[in-house]
């Protein structure tokens, strides 16, 4: 085995052993809140990714996970970020306007 091949093999093994995040760097996804509604969550979200809530409304909102994974207030015209730490299908709503609901699918 040539030196080059050995290095290549080592690199491949290294990649295989390292965490998923090293292979697919964490991403930031934005979910806009407008006219008292969450826009649909994007697909392909993974553990370690970040959701950036952007509240374009003239009143404050929250993003509150029904399973307690997160609960953040997003003041009017502001952005707030949440790092997703667990996989699952998570339903969320706004505590101030419970008729605002959404769902995120977070993969491992």
């Amino acid at each position, binding site marked *: 085995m040539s030196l080059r091949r050995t290095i290549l093999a080592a690199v491949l093994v290294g990649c295989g052993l390292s965490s998923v995040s090293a292979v697919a760097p964490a991403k930031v996804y934005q979910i806009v809140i407008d*006219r*008292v509604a969450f826009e649909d969550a994007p697909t392909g979200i993974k553990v370690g990714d970040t959701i950036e809530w952007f509240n374009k*409304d*003239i*009143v*404050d909102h929250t993003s509150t996970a029904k399973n307690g994974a997160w609960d953040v207030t997003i003041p009017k015209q502001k952005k707030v970020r949440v790092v997703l730490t667990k996989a699952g299908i998570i339903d969320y709503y706004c505590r*101030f*306007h419970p*008729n605002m609901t959404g769902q995120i699918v977070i993969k491992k």
Partner: protein
Amino acid sequence: MFRSISAVMAVLSVSFVTASAQGGAKPTDPQIAHIAYTAGQIDIEAGKQAIKMSKNKEVIAFAENMVKDHTAVNKLALDLCKKLGVTPEDNDTSKSLSKAAASKQAELAKLTGAAFDKAYMDNEVAYHKTVNGALDTLLIPSSSNAELKGLLQQGLTIFKGHQQHAEHTASMIK
């Protein structure tokens, strides 16, 4: 004898209809601003009353949100009036709104517990329905300034959310 909710709502509906029918004259921007602001203030006061009187968590959370949202929208309305040099002008619709609200507040003040919660929430459903209808069919179409119209439209989407929230909360009270 207390006025029934429907009677009060009938008064509100009539007041909006009357305003729209007066000599075919539609309300002016200063009048629209006054009506919208007054309608918001009425719901803020009703919310404060509910926060003080209710012991129901859901009802209090709803009331707190009414105070918060209507205060935010009314602040924007006042800021916009200032920017546009519009002085809100009192009018018959605003007056009948305030009159109906005062009588409703007195009626609610005599109730306690679940009876208060139910009466407050039922009134919130009916009130948002009436005001949203008035915004949709009279106030927004009548407003001539684009920025005022835009703010009223944004307000309407929020208040429609309040209506749904009110319906949901009302349905949970036995």
